[in-house]
Structures are given as structure tokens and as C-alpha cells.
């Protein structure tokens, strides 16, 4: 009996200590990064309950095991066997049925939490999302804006209608706690209500190839006023751009996710940078050099594998695009301006 009392006390102490330890590490009350969405509330709540039960389950196995190791160890020179106990059916039934109840309770809570996460606001703002190796593009259909940054108004539900141009991707903003795969050939939905103004990042969570690690775009949660200002600014920019060939070229580059791999400021990426690209002598992987002119750029856009710049992946990971001649000319004009 004395053994049971000691173990009982130790189990309680260990449960409390384990929970406090998790809490100090910042892992008990929430799943670490700051929570920035309405959906994260029920998710973090469920996580918190789970951490409490897990602390207890850890203690109830670990403590009697360690206690037995110390209290019931074989002393030196002792050759005796332990007590002959084969089992106890009541006990076995107890530790089958009690966990079964726990399972049902947590499955119920899981269902409740999932229901909270999926709660639909019919007034939700719709944004189209396109994932492609290795960048995200966001389209605001109401305003005709296309952007590489996702701006969201705070405290309003948005529904992202997502699709992929090539392979599987997964839309994950750790602060929102939600993740949804992006699948070619279908549209998947991601509902989120941002609650905390700030700068976050969407990080692709489904392995999508060589530069998967860098498939990250800015997600900015704005106050309603800032959001409105951004929308007006972007609409004006889009209208102005549409009037010049280089502006149209820039829009095409943004819409098609070109800038995910080709930087504008000379930093190396998955593909060659566009900064100072036009007119330079480029080294190819077969050892020859070539002058970057209209013909070379047009060929590289339509058939990325025709010529590979030295140091880049062969065969090219760039998808083959279909553009009209005018669109290609506009993109090239845009590249020419990048000096």
C-alpha cells in the first residue's frame, strides 16, 4: 500500500511539473508563434487541453516505471524471482475502457474545434491564389489587382480560392495555424479571419522541388484604412501600367510568378536575375557565351530548355509559358528597363 501512496503523490507532482515545463517553453497555452487569426483560438484551446492530458499520461506511465526500477531492483547477489502475478481482468478492462472514453471526448472536441475553424461567413472577401514553382501570386478579382504580396484587412473573413500551375503546394501561415494543400486541376479553399495587424509569411509546406524552401511570400494584415489605401494605390498602379508596354510587361511578370525565381535587384535566385540582364554577355552551360538580346529572351521564355545559363539547373525547372508575340515583346521591354 505504501508503494501506491508514494507513486500516487509522485504522479501528481510529475504531472504538474511536466505541464509547467511545457508552459515555460511556451508550448502549453498555444502552439508557439503568436496567434493571429480567429480560427487559431479553438485550435490553441484544443492544443492546451491536449497538453494537460499528455502531461498526466506521461506521468502515469513514466513514474511507476522509474519507481519500480529503483524500488524493485535486484540487489547484488540476489537470485530470487519476482512475485508471481499473471494479471487482473478488472484492471485490464479499466485501462481499456477509460482511455476509450478519453478518445471519444477528444474526438468530440476535435470535431467541435474543426467546426469552429470551418465556420463560414457569407460576406467573406474572395481572393484567388495561384501557387507555382516557386512563388505565390494573389489576385483580387473585385479590383483587377494582381500582387506578390497578400494584403488582408483585419477582422474580416477572407476565403482564398487556391490552385496550382504545376505540382502540389501547401499554403501555410504559422501564425494563422491553418494549412491547405494547393492542387493542380482543382480549387481548394482556405478560410481565415486575421485578428492581429502585422507582417507574416506564407510558407509552402508541401515539397515542391529544388527551391521549395524559398517559396515564401509576404502576408500583410492591415487595418481597414491601410487596406483600403493599398487597394486604391494598387488599382491606380495597375491602370497606369496597363497604358505602357513596359508596364504591361511588368504586370505579366507579376501575374505569372516570374519574380519568384528571377530577382529584380541582382540577388541570385532559382533563375538568373533580370537586373542588368539585357545586353550582357551570358555564359551558357555548354561553355559558349551569348549576347542577351530580344531573340534570346523570346526563345528562353517560350522554351526554357533551349539554352541553360552556366550554374543553373539542367533541364530547366521553369515551366514553358504560352504568350502572344505582343506579350513577349512587352516583357522584354520591361526587362530592358531594369538597369
Amino acid at each position, binding site marked *: 500500500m505504501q508503494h501506491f501512496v508514494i507513486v500516487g503523490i509522485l504522479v501528481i507532482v510529475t504531472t504538474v511539473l511536466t505541464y509547467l515545463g511545457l508552459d515555460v517553453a511556451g*508550448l502549453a497555452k498555444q*502552439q508557439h*508563434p503568436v496567434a493571429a487569426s480567429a480560427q487559431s483560438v*479553438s*485550435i490553441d484551446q*484544443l492544443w492546451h487541453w*491536449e497538453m494537460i492530458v*499528455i502531461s498526466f499520461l*506521461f506521468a502515469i*506511465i*513514466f513514474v*511507476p*516505471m522509474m519507481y*519500480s*526500477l529503483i524500488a*524493485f*531492483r*535486484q540487489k547484488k547477489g*540476489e537470485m*530470487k*524471482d*519476482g*512475485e*508471481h*502475478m*499473471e494479471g*487482473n481482468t478488472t*484492471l*485490464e478492462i479499466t*485501462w*481499456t475502457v477509460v*482511455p476509450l472514453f478519453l*478518445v471519444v471526448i*477528444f*474526438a468530440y*472536441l*476535435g*470535431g467541435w*474545434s474543426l467546426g469552429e*475553424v470551418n465556420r463560414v461567413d457569407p460576406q467573406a472577401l474572395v481572393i484567388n491564389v495561384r501557387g507555382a514553382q516557386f512563388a505565390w501570386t494573389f489576385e483580387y478579382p473585385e479590383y483587377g489587382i494582381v500582387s506578390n504580396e497578400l494584403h488582408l484587412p483585419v477582422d474580416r473573413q477572407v476565403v482564398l480560392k487556391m490552385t496550382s500551375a*504545376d505540382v*502540389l503546394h*501547401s499554403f501555410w501561415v*504559422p501564425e494563422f*495555424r*491553418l*494549412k*491547405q494543400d494547393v*492542387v*493542380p*486541376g482543382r480549387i481548394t479553399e482556405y478560410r481565415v479571419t486575421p485578428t492581429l495587424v502585422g507582417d507574416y509569411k506564407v*510558407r509552402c*509546406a*508541401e*515539397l515542391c*522541388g*529544388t527551391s*521549395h524552401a524559398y517559396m*515564401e511570400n509576404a502576408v500583410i494584415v492591415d487595418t481597414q484604412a491601410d487596406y483600403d489605401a493599398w487597394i486604391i494605390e494598387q488599382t491606380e498602379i495597375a491602370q497606369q501600367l496597363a497604358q505602357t508596354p513596359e508596364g504591361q510587361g511588368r504586370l505579366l511578370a507579376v501575374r505569372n510568378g516570374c519574380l519568384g525565381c528571377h530577382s529584380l535587384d541582382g540577388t541570385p535566385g532559382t533563375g538568373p536575375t533580370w537586373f542588368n540582364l539585357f545586353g550582357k554577355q551570358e555564359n551558357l552551360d555548354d561553355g559558349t557565351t551569348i549576347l542577351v538580346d530580344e531573340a534570346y529572351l523570346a526563345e528562353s521564355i517560350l522554351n526554357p530548355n533551349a539554352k541553360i545559363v552556366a550554374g543553373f*539547373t539542367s533541364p530547366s525547372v521553369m515551366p514553358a509559358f504560352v504568350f502572344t508575340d505582343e506579350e513577349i515583346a512587352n516583357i522584354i521591354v520591361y526587362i530592358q528597363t531594369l538597369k
Partner: protein
Amino acid sequence: MKKFFTSALFKGLVWQVIGFFIGAGLVTGIRALMGLSTTDTFFFTEPAWVLGAFFGAISFLVGCGVTDDWIKWARGIETHDEHEEHWTGWEKYVNVSLDHKVIGIQYTLISLALIAIGGTFALIFRAELAASQLQFLTTEFQIFGQNGPQLYNTLMSLHGIVMIISILLGVSGIINYAVPLLIGAADMSFPRLNAFSYWIAVPAAITLISSLFLGGFDTGWTGYPPLSARAPVGMQMFFMGVFIAGWSSILGALNVVVTVLRMRAKGMTAMKMPIFVWAGLATSIIAMTATQFIGLAFQLVMFQRLFDMGFFDPSKGGNPVLFQHLFWFYSHPAVYVFILPGLGVISELLPVFVRKPLYGYRWIAMSSIGIALVGFVVWAHHMFTSGMNEYLRVPFMYSTLLVSVPTGVKFFSWVATMWKGKISTPTPMLFVLGAIVVFLMGGLSGPPHATVSTDLHLHDTYFVVGHFHDTIFGGFVFPFFAAIYYWFPKATGRRMNEFWGKVHFWLMTPSFFVVTFGMMYVGLLGMRRRIADYDPALGIDTSQLIITIAAFCIALSVLIFFINFFYSIKNGEKAEGNVWESRSPEWQVPSPMSLHNYPTPIEVVGEPYDYGLKDAPYTRFAPASKGKGKH
């Protein structure tokens, strides 16, 4: 050395190369006649590599001689039913043997070799992860037709699949060695099929690893299309390697099921079988019936690439999510294939070192079967974010959480077994205890993945990676080491060095906790799976460095194990008797075991784990006259 060049292994390897060139040449010839291209980045075209790999595996099997008896039967030539051993020492293990003990050790050796290879891959990419930014696997780095980040993806993917194949072979190793001994059989039911199951794994492993040199593959071990439909030709070697290894699993499992059902000693009713036999049976039922699905899934992608079929290509009406269903319908039950034998080892060894009966024997036996059956209906919990039907997620949450019930029964029973025992802790027992604690961590970090909404955050992060490594180390790696330390004297007549065994344990266990807790921590902070580089803004550089250092400590401890293992074969302390004072039948005869195991048939006269009960043996040698008449 001459002995090696005449061995079955060497002959098989030579024939594999010849077979490869026949297959590759055939395709290249046909393509030339049809006016198609005949060379590609890696000399042969992709179809040539695929058929070459397939032909190579088949000619390995014919060349090494494992199919000789079957070919003789087909030609009407009699063979000896009694298999005799022609080799001594290490030669046994590089030649075709029909003895289940030799095959069990062969499996164990190839498993250890693959652990070393897969572990080395892990060390390379773990070093890259020690700090953010790319240090040595940069875009300028070029090898095997891959640049640094591509090589990272290849090594990460190969680490996964090489370790998985290694575990499957290690599982076969323990089961093959121990099950016939535990049930008192002279051998497996189908000794030739048993040898075949082992030998087919050799060309499979070679095919798999050859992918590293053929441009690699960047999809992870899951090989999800559409990415896997676009990856370099190494992808095909991965598919082909797993496809062939699957045969080893299916045929080996079939053999175990038949052996357990038909070859038990007299008096060994179902509830008197050693508990490890229950685990082996449960695991074999899964391996025999589920492996086909991964073979099928991989074959479909193979054909999509070779023949332009659109199974998983949305532009042709295919469905990428279908692949995930097919893949996980095997690959989830597969993790129970990995862990059930390990949990069986824990249950089998624990009473020996606690000197007390296994608490709740029937419940533990039934929980193995329970886990195996429930394991078939949980696969879609890997796909909560995949875009499958949203409502399907709820039933899969229920079924997944249900797995914790039979698993809990095992934990409670183990603890009750230890209660009021007389516990001693030699090396095998240390690994058993380590296994229980590590597996507990794996078990406790599981439910947050099962409840769908929390998984929306955790899925595809390092939290999953940490959880997974806990379950596999607790469910397989620790018990595997325990089993090796425990049965090593049975196989060799010598025991492994106790001091270095303890060093191995005390170095590996704390390092391992640092690795997995570190992984879970960085995962919660935003570290995604399968990335070569991470955002320094996450603030996890220090944690990553500590994980890498701890990973190298694990490697060091395993190196100590390897040295101890090979040194002790010849130089270990002699141990021919019942070193662990076990009640199990294999320890009632001298070590090493003789060719057909027991000199006279054994029969069961008691309970397997009646420690603490005087004059109640489990088995005895059957009286000669009675025993023979019955068979």
C-alpha cells in the same frame, strides 16, 4: 578473397550487371529501330534504365542460385529435401542457405548496412541544417548531375526510404531468426521461399541506392505526383527498388504466417505462444496484404512517366490525390509493420529481466492484433490538408485516436509487469526500457496530429518529423538493438561487451531525446519538413545546431555498437548456456544453435512466462516414442 569471388553474392552482382545491360540494350535497340532517341543525360534513356533495372534484379536471383532448386523441379530433377550446410564462418552469409537462422542473420546484416548508409545520408544533410543559409550544398556545388539543393533533396528522400527498407529487413531478421526457435520448429515452412525473400532484397537495395547517381529524386520518400512525374530518372530507380523490395516483404510475411499457423510445437495453443510470435503474426498479416498498394501506386507513376498515361495528371483527367490514398493505404499500416515486432521484443524480454510473468498476456497478444486491424482504417489522417473530402476527416480522426487504446493497454501492462519484480539491467534490458520511454514520447506526441484542427498547424512541420522518429526509434531501433544484444549469444556462442553496450545506450538515449524534442520545438515555431534552408527570422539557428550535434552523437554511439558487434563475433566472452536465465525453449539448449534447432522435438507443458513459480517449466523435450507417432 577467392572465397568471396565464388560466393553467391558476387555471382549475383555480376549477373545483375549483365542482366541490366541485356534489358537496357533491348530497349535501346528497339528505340533505334523505331527511330527514337537512344541516349539521354545519363547515357541510356529512361525506359532503358527501367527495364535494365528490372532485368538486373531477375538475373541477380537466377545468377546467385536461389532459384536453382525450383528450376530443377521444373525440369523434373530431384533435389535433396534435407538442406545441408556447405560453408563455415562468414561464407555462410554470402551464400545461399536455407537455414532460417542464417537467413535471419543475413537479413540483420543487410539491415545494419542500410542503417549505416541511411544514417550517413542523414549526417550530411543534418550538417547543412546546422545553420540557416546554404553552407556546402550550394547551387554552385555539382555532383551526380545535381546541384547542392537538389542533392539535399535526394539525400533527404533516400534517408527516408533506405531506413524504411532497412527496418523492413531488420524486422524480417528478428522474426526469421526467433520465430521458428520460439515455436520449436526445425525451420520455416518454405525454406526456399524464405531464401528467395532475402536474396531479392539485395538487388532491390542496389537499385534503390543507384538513384543517387542518376540525378536523384526530389520528392521525399512519399513520391507524390505531379512532382514525381517530373523528377529525374533517379525517381524510376526509387520506384523500381521499392517495388522489388515489396516482393521480399510479401513473400517473407506469407512464410511467417504459414509457419506460425502450421509448425508450432505440440501443446502450443494460441494462448501459449511466446508473445513475440503474436507480434510477428500481426505484422506479417499487414505486410502480406497491404504492400501491394504501394507497389501499385508506384507502378502507376512509373507507367505515367514511361507510357504517358495520365493516372495522376489533372490535364489528362487524372487525380493527384488518388495517389496519396493508394500510397498511405500501405504506408500507414507499414509503420505498424515496423513497430509491432519491436513492441513484441519489449514484451518478450521484459519478463526475463523483471523475473515476473508478463502482466495480462492475453491482452497484450490481442492488442497487437487490434493495432494491426485498426491500422488499416486510419490512412487518410496523413491527408487532412490534402484537399480530399472535408467530411472524411472526422471519421478518420475517430479511428486514429482509437489506435491509442490497444497501445495504451501495452504500456499499462508493461508497467504492471515491472511492478514488484526483481529488476536487473544488463544491456538488452536497458534498450528495452529506453524503447518504452521513447515510444511513450512517440505515442503522446501523436494525438495532436489526430485531432484534425491541431494537425492543420502541425502537418508537414518538424513536429511530425520528431513524432515519427520517436515512434520508430521506440518501436523499432531500440528494440532491434535490445534483440541483437539479447540473441547475440544464441547466434554466436559469445556475448557482446557489456561495458561498450552500456556506453552505446547512455550516449544514444539522451542524444536522441535532444534530437526529437528539438525537432518538435522548431516544428512548432515554423520549421517545415524537407527544406534545405530556413528563414533566419524564425530564430531557430541555435536549436538546429544543437540537434545536429546530438545527431552526430547518435552516429558515434552506433559506430561503437558496430565495432562491439563485429569484434565480439570472434573475441566476445564465451556464453554457451542460458545467459539470461530465460524460460524460453531456445535457451534450454546450448548456443550456438545446431542446424535443425532442437535435437528432439519439444512440447509445451506450461505457461511461457511463469517466472516466480517453482517447478513449472514452459517446455520439455518430448518423449521420443510418443512425439514421433503423432507427426
